Structures are given as structure tokens and as C-alpha cells.
């Protein structure tokens, strides 16, 4: 038994943490938030050069061939500083290609993804609050040697920064992912609360997709990719939640009211302690889920549903209390804690909210 990180993983954590402090501090994040795509080529290339983009790409395709648990380390640390780079959606796309792609597709795409040359993103569901194969409504109709696709994919993460998009579509009663170049589609901004997670509304107008750009996706594949998506988002929730918690806790040590640091009042202190209990707990659940994704795939559905089910509610509460415990200063645009509230609201429904995941836990648990 060893439920801890290896020395290499700790070094990786330090490396990402240093990158965030030196290259992507909050001032930089805010600068990127003000742009449409939140993207920075220089930072992206650094992330690629450090190996993070190819972390889960097998060595045969130019990556490091590491696991989801290693990526979890990266995402926890980048999300601590709300890094807007599309590292999670790149990794999610890697998972989709590894799972659903042909040998040709893998060798065409994966190396360019690991090297950072190609930015990929993936859009699964068309319904904003429904995790089910039926919630994929974008239609692909067979045509000469390929498919014709028309419709919209409303919430595609980082669509504006992507060179390639993998969009889930339905072809009669089968599912698949169509791989498209950015130039083939129309992307409009999808304004929403969390500007560190830009989303695009992708419109496809009678597009012809060749067979070689189609990845068949079974319902099991979809379920797996949803779970992997949830692992990635929850890893980011852990880092972001911890940052918000410590930001608030640090403030409570310094802020004096009635002659004492507010952290001395149990109304503040005990609340902080409860929040800590929550963050610790969904963090452990997430680590277990990330381990399961690598080593015990049969365990993944239950493991990730426990983690995301817990984290979705707990982080949302922390987002609110983080501001409440700061008082008025926490409400200002200038102060960072509010950005974490917005992240908590963004992350909650993505790849299933607590209702979805806890219901699944009950079902998988035999009820």
C-alpha cells in the first residue's frame, strides 16, 4: 500500500508550481482573461517543452507515457493559479484519440499534440445538464466516403484557441467524434462566468467530413470519456479549492476586527476547519479516481462519481464562503477570491453535477 506521490511526481509538482509563480502569476492570468481565447503561445510552448502536453501520450507517439495521476499533479498546480491554458482539454482529446482513434489517426495527431504544435479540444454533450448518449444531438449523415454535419455544439471548452476540434455527433443510432479544423467551423464566444475557462459555441454548416476524420465512439467510450473529463475537471477543482481556502485562511490571520484577527472567532475558525475537511476529502477521492483511471478502470465510474459528487457541492460552498469570510473586499473585482467562486460554478455541472454523480454512486452501490 502506498497512497502517496513518488519523488518524480513531487518534482513535477514543484516544476509546475514554479512555472505558475514565475510565468503565469495572477497578473498574467487576468491579462489572458481579457482576451477572447485566453491563450498564450509562449506559455503553451513552455508547457509542451516541459513535457506536460504529452504526459499521457504513449512514448511511441512522442509522449512521456505517464498516467492520469501524473497529469492530476499538473492540473492541480495550474488550477491553483487558475491558469487558462487548455491543458485539460488537450489531455481529454488525447484520451479520446487513444480510445477511439485508428492507428493512422493516432500517429497523425498525437505527436503534434505532445509537441504543442496542435491545440486540440473536445465537445461531447449538446445538452447543458444531461449526461447521457441521448444528450448528443448533433447529427452526422453519411454521404460519399464520409459524413455531412450540420448544427451547433454550444459549450466547447477553449474552442477559440483550438486548431482542431473533436465534436461528438450522432449518426443514426451510432455515435462518433468528428475531427475538424478550426477554419471549417464558425466559433462564437460563449459568455459565461469563468473567463479563465473560455468556451465557444461552434456552428457547423453542412460540413463534409471525410471518413478518415471520423472516430467511432461506443456508449462505453462516451461514458469513459465523460469520466476522464470529470477526473480532469475535479483535479483542477482540488487545486483551485485549496488556493481559495488558503487565501481565505491567510486573510483571516491578518484581518483585525474588534481588536483580534477574525480567525480567532469560532464563526470564522470553525468554518475554515469544515472547509478544510471537505477539500482534504474530495482531494483523496480524486487521487483514488485518478489512480483507478490508470490501474483499475473498472473502478473508475464509482471512484470518479464519489469525487466529483463530493467536490461539486463542496467547492461551490467554499467559493461562496471564501467571499463571505473575507467580507466586502472579497466582493471586489480586483481581489482574486471571487475568481475562484466563478471557477466553482463553472466546474460544478461539467461532466455531471453532484446529483448525477451521487445518483450513480447509489446505483453502482447496488440501490
Amino acid at each position, binding site marked *: 500500500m502506498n497512497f502517496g506521490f513518488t519523488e518524480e511526481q513531487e518534482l513535477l509538482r514543484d516544476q509546475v508550481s514554479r512555472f505558475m509563480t514565475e510565468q503565469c502569476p495572477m497578473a498574467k492570468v487576468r491579462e489572458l482573461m481579457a482576451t477572447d481565447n485566453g491563450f498564450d503561445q509562449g506559455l503553451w510552448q513552455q508547457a509542451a517543452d516541459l513535457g506536460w502536453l504529452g504526459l499521457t501520450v504513449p512514448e511511441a507517439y512522442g509522449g512521456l507515457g505517464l498516467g492520469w495521476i501524473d497529469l492530476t499533479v499538473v492540473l492541480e498546480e495550474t488550477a491553483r493559479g487558475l491558469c487558462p491554458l487548455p491543458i485539460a482539454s488537450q489531455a481529454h482529446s488525447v484520451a479520446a484519440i487513444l480510445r477511439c482513434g485508428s492507428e493512422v489517426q493516432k500517429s497523425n495527431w498525437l505527436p503534434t499534440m505532445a509537441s504543442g504544435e496542435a491545440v486540440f479540444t473536445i465537445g461531447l454533450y449538446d445538452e*447543458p445538464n444531461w449526461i447521457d448518449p441521448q444528450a448528443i444531438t448533433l447529427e452526422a449523415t453519411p454521404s460519399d466516403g464520409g459524413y455531412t454535419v450540420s448544427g451547433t455544439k*454550444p459549450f466547447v471548452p477553449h474552442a477559440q484557441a483550438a486548431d482542431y476540434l473533436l465534436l461528438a455527433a450522432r449518426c443514426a443510432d451510432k455515435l462518433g467524434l468528428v475531427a475538424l479544423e478550426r477554419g471549417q467551423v464558425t466559433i462564437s464566444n460563449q459568455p*459565461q462566468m469563468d473567463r479563465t475557462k473560455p468556451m465557444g*459555441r461552434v456552428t457547423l454548416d453542412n460540413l463534409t467530413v471525410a471518413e478518415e476524420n471520423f472516430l467511432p465512439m461506443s456508449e462505453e467510450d462516451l461514458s469513459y470519456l465523460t469520466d476522464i473529463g470529470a477526473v480532469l475537471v475535479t483535479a483542477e477543482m482540488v487545486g483551485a479549492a485549496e488556493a481559495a481556502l488558503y487565501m481565505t485562511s491567510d486573510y483571516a490571520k491578518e484581518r483585525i476586527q*474588534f481588536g483580534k484577527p477574525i480567525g480567532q472567532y469560532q464563526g470564522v475558525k470553525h468554518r475554515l476547519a469544515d472547509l478544510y475537511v471537505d477539500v482534504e476529502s474530495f482531494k483523496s477521492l480524486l487521487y483514488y479516481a485518478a489512480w483507478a483511471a490508470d490501474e483499475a478502470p473498472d473502478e473508475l465510474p464509482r471512484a470518479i462519481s464519489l469525487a466529483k459528487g463530493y467536490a461539486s457541492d463542496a467547492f461551490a460552498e467554499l467559493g461562496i464562503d471564501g*467571499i463571505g469570510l473575507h467580507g466586502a473586499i472579497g466582493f471586489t473585482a480586483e481581489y482574486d477570491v471571487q475568481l475562484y467562486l466563478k471557477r466553482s460554478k463553472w466546474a460544478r455541472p461539467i461532466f455531471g453535477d453532484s*446529483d448525477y454523480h451521487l445518483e450513480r454512486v447509489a446505483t453502482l452501490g447496488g440501490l
Partner: protein
Amino acid sequence: MDFDYTPEEQAFREEVRTFLKDNLPPKEARDPGFLKTWLERVREKGWVGFSWPKEFGGGSGGLIEQAILREEMALAKAPPLGTSFMGLAWVGPGIMQYGTQEQKQRFIPDILDSKVTWCTGYSEPNHGSDLAAIQCKAVRDGDHYVVNGQKIWTTGAPFSQWIILLVRTDFDVEVKHQGITCLLVPMDAPGLEVRPIENMAGDRHFAEVFFTDVKVPVENRLGDEGDGWKVTVSALANERSSIGEVTQMFAKLDTLKGLVRNSKKQGRPASEDPKVRRQIAQFEAKIAAMKYNGLRYLTKQIKGEPLSSETSVNKLHRASLEIEMDDFAVELGGTAGVALAGSEEAVDEGSWAKSSLSWPNVVIGGGTPNIQRNIIAERILGQPKD
């Protein structure tokens, strides 16, 4: 116990309804001059400052009638009865109670006529919950005070003409509540500078207000020197029943139910989801509790019994509802719930998302929940102070 209204009270309710029928056109049919006409009409009725004495231009109305008026106005989603919100809520009552004859004549009519907007300069960077410890300083110099210091979170400062200001005139006091004085200051006074602050929802309602050698004539002092705490605390206690607020919350709950009826969750009608149903019912229970709490406290007031700190109960309910109702709507919408105005998918044009980022207006703005909890525990239950 009697929940019936007297024939006179019933008649008053009818009068309000008839007035609303005649004077409140549907939103689409309102012309640009509507608000001005509306404010004049309600003013003519004596409904602005409804419970204020007639001699000051108020309506001398009773507390029950006032509750009825507020309830009907909220039900009809009518515009406010005046635009000087803080003027009507506490500055006016404070002036009527502690002001000189000259101050009453000078300030009250403009509040009632919505000519002047007031803002409230209490909080300072280092003194929010611990308001009595304020440091903004005023030194008497002949026939005026010279004010130096800073206020913050002053709602409405960027568009108000006057500020009700708490300053410290005496630093050598045994208890911090002493030595505080209340001044009424025009926002265009030389040396007064306003710097708006943007909040997380993107609005710029509140501001920092800086005072550098601002001269305030002594005749602008409200109450005696050193009595500022009493003057403002009793003015705050003037916030009467929260019945209108409760009606607004019922209206919001109705809108929320409409959203539930039109929403799906995991592909099924949200209204069939047991958790959704339970949550909506819990909101309703809390709002109803606020209503009947409010009526009990109102009854006490009418009987002339002192209200101690019971209103903190409703303040705590209000705070949690303020956070939870919008957040519930946002969660229900899934990713479309976090979408903002400008998104085709946004739920109700992003209005829930936007208001789910605005709860600190209520939850922090009027004193934080922890402070309300302290009030209940210490003043009502007699627990020792921290």
C-alpha cells in the same frame, strides 16, 4: 390571534389596488417620463414616507397600512416609492428624530420628492463589522469641522448628492462607541473625492470616499457631538417591517417555480425531481417563516413593546435565501446556468447567473451573517461576548 384585517385596512388595500390599476401601466406601455409621473403621483398620495409625521410631509400612516402598502407594491412589481433609498430608509428618520428644525426643513422635502440621493459613509478599510472603532477624523475649528480620513464600500457614492457620515471627534474615550459624531456632507464639498470600485458582477455601485481637509459647517452636524453612535444606530433600527421584502421574495420564488416547470434535468422534467421539489418547498417554508416572523414583530411594535434583536432572525433567513435561490437556478441550468447575457443558451438571458454573483449586496452589505449570529447569541440568548 387574528389574521383578519379590519374593514378600514381592507378598504386601504382596495385603494392601493385601484391606484395601481390606474397608475401602473404594464412595462411595455411605459413611456420615458413614466417614473417621474409615478413618483409625483405616489407623493401626492402621501405614500412616500408613509409612516412619517404629516408635519414633515409624510403620510402619518399606521404600521399595518404601511405593511399593506408595501405588500401591494411588491405584488404589482411597482417601482420604488422614491429614489432616495437610504434617505427614506434611515437618513430621513434620523433627521426627524435628531435633527434641528432647520435641518428638517432643509433635507426632508428633498428626500420625499426624490430630488436628492443620499449615501452612507460608515465603513472604513479597517473597520467593517467593528464599526464603532472608526477612525475618520473631524476636528472642530470655529464654526465648522475639518474632516480627514477615508470611507469605503459607500454604496451609491458615485451618484449621490449627500452623504451621512460617521466621524470620530474624540480619540480619548473609554468606550469606542463614544466620541463618534454624525455629519451631513454634500458630495461636492471641496476635498472630497470618490473612487468607484468594481465588484465581481462587473457593477460599480460602491466606492471609496476620501476626505482631505473637508470643511463641514457645524450646522450640518446631526445630533450632539459625540452622539453619533446613538443617532445612527437608532436610525438603523428605524428599518421597519420587512413585509414588502417578503412579498418580493415570494414573487421571486414564483419566477423560480416557472423556471423549474420549463426545465429539464438529466433529460427529465425538473419538476418531477424529488430533490428539486424539496428544495423549492424549503425556500417556500423559509420565506413563509419570514412573513409570519415579520407579522409577529410588527404586532410587538404596534403594541409598543420594544423589539430587541429579533429582526436578526429574518436577516439570516434573507441572507441564505439570497445566496441559495439564485444558485439553485444556476445549478439547475447546468452549463447554460453559468452562461451570461449575450449567450444564446443562457437561462433567462443570464439574469440568474448575474444575480448569483450579486448576493454580497445583501449578505455582506448590511452586516454579515456572523454578526447577526453574535447578536442573537449575545443579546437574545445572553451568551458571553467573544
